[in-house]
């Protein structure tokens, strides 16, 4: 794939606007709250779109198309089951506490609700995680651009990191949020022509179903297994995900989804930056509306790509070293096939934008947690606001440099990264039990929350050490203690690990809470749902009312699950 001057011009225009936004925001960023929380002045629709696209890093975009090619339409479980309900729940029931308590970060909420040690545990693991995941996605993008356009790996890494650094350094979270919204529109307008052309070419939805039926049968599944979401989940063996309905609904739909969407500060920070409590509640629910439709933009191209492999003159997926198809190339292959120079530049710009805003999202969350929850709480309390603003800017530089280091670490020692990600998964799995109990059961105590998180993480590790997916070698895939159970797939094992960690954390937290002294009610006002006033101000427009939007969004998600049952 080669780019021409027009493609270059399109990429250049985008970069120009990105830098211009940073410059324009620099003068408006005067206090630490401007820098870390956008001065709590972001309108609901901007916060909502940023909330939605903060999660859509390039890895996610490329990965969703890859999963579309591998698992078919069932990939949309990650949207309609694994995102929408949690986003609506966050908006309706959790934002009043995050926003109303005036906490400046998710770890700070834990400090207000529980105690310092719970915050420290969460803040430290979160800070590490953001740097590592930003590094991993940089590495992935460096590889992809090298493969597609022949750009040197080092150049990609330093160039993109440099641009992210410039705009976050100048405008802080506001720069990050503005670029996420820009990225949202670039993804929509960059990938929509691809989907339209692809669908026309393959003969519409019915043509796609027919092509995928062949592939499904060939892989040993029922003919419609790649074009339906629930029909074949009665048993893990008859659907390409290799997970049954219980694992999908409880593991993905409940534990993993709520744990991610409702507690990950990278996302919650976008809603915390909203200009009012009402806007903060609307943001995740507004975000859920495009989230409902995004499978058409990111999963469908992967399905079309794999469908085209069975046609004369269609597509050929390159093979991985182990002989399996390299599904990660689904999106790039589609870009190269359908987009002529000009529009191709727009498609590549969309990929780059999602890469940069994914990285900026991690950096803005990192600098906030570092400055407020680690530096101000433990290293230097009671300094001036300007001091913390400067610390935040330095943390931005440090965060970008650490991400670059992580990217090179990923390039050199891939197995270390796999191990780190596994450990983070153990740490994250129990989180939602802690928040659920903390927010909705006033009896929950700090010691209980801390013990629950630790034992939940240990529970996750133990479950992983005792079980293994089919055909895997004991080690990083599990079974490193001894094997008591074999799962049909890695995904089934992951979902069960999450359920196990959540249950362990829930039980430990309840038990310890009952034997430790609770905090008096008046200290928990604004932190626990039942002790919080709910006189919400009226939203700017009646159609933005969360109590109206929430059932509509949930109903639409339900309908989509039925239509593609």
């Amino acid at each position, binding site marked *: 794939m080669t780019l021409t001057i027009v493609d270059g011009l399109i990429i250049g225009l985008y970069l120009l606007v990105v830098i211009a936004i940073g410059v324009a925001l620099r003068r408006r960023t005067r206090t630490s709250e401007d820098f870390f929380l956008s001065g709590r002045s*972001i309108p609901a629709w901007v916060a909502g779109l940023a909330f939605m696209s903060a999660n859509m890093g390039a890895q996610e975009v490329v990965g969703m198309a890859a999963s579309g090619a591998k698992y078919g339409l069932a990939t949309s479980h990650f949207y309609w089951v694994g995102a929408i309900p949690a986003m609506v729940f966050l908006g309706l029931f959790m934002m009043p506490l995050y926003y109303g308590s005036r906490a400046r970060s998710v770890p700070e909420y834990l400090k207000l609700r529980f105690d310092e040690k719970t915050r420290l545990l969460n803040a430290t693991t979160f800070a590490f995680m953001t740097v590592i995941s930003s590094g991993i996605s940089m590495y992935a993008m460096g590889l992809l651009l090298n493969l597609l356009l022949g750009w040197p790996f080092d150049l990609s890494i330093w160039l993109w990191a440099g641009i992210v650094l410039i705009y976050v350094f100048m405008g802080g979270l506001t720069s990050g949020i503005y670029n996420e919204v820009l990225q949202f529109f670039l993804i929509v307008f960059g990938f929509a022509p691809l989907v339209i052309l692809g669908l026309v070419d393959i003969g519409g939805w019915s043509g796609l179903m027919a092509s995928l039926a062949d592939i499904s049968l060939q892989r040993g599944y029922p003919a419609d297994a790649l074009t339906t979401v629930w029909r074949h989940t009665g048993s893990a063996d008859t659907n390409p995900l290799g997970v049954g309905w219980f694992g999908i609904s409880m593991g993905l739909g409940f534990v993993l989804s709520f744990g991610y969407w409702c507690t990950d500060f990278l996302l919650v920070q976008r809603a915390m930056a909203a200009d009012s409590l009402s806007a903060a509640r609307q943001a995740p629910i507004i975000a859920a509306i495009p989230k409902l439709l995004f499978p058409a933009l990111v999963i469908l191209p992967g399905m079309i790509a794999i469908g085209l492999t069975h046609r004369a003159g269609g597509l050929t997926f390159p093979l991985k070293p182990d002989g399996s198809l390299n599904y990660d190339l689904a999106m790039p292959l589609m870009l190269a096939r359908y987009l002529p120079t000009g529009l191709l530049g727009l498609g590549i710009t969309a990929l780059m934008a999602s890469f940069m805003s994914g990285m900026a999202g991690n950096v803005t969350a990192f600098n906030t947690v570092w400055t407020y929850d680690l530096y101000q709480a433990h290293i230097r309390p009671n300094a001036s606001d300007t001091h913390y603003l400067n610390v935040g800017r330095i943390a931005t530089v440090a965060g970008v440099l650490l991400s670059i280091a992580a990217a090179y670490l990923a390039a050199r020692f891939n197995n270390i990264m796999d191990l780190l990600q596994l450990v983070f998964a153990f740490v994250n799995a129990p989180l939602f039990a802690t928040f659920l109990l903390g927010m909705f059961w006033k009896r929950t105590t700090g010691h209980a929350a801390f013990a629950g998180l630790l034992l939940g993480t240990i529970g996750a590790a133990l479950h992983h050490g005792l079980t293994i997916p089919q055909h895997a070698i004991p080690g990083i895939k599990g079974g490193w203690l001894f094997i008591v159970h074999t799962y049909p797939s890695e995904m089934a094992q992951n979902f069960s690990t999450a359920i196990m960690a959540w249950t362990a954390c829930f039980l430990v937290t309840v038990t310890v809470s009952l034997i430790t002294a609770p905090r008096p009610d008046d200290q928990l006002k604004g932190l626990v749902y039942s002790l919080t006033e709910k006189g919400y101000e009226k939203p700017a427009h009646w159609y933005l009312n969360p109590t109206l939007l929430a059932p509509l969004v949930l109903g639409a998600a339900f309908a989509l699950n039925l239509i593609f049952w």
Partner: protein
Amino acid sequence: MGLDLRLPIGALFTALGLVLIVYGAISDPAIYARSLGININLDWGCVLLVFGVAMLAASWRRTAK
């Protein structure tokens, strides 16, 4: 916040739309074999232009108020 986000979004998409329309008008039709014979640069450029101008208009309307 002071800076209305619709302004840079509108400016970017208006510019992108114009670039694609001009390029679509002067480019060799042979490059559209891969987009099923449709001059997708021209067509999609119009879509981007309409979106960009709408965003700019919304931003100006707010400033005028």
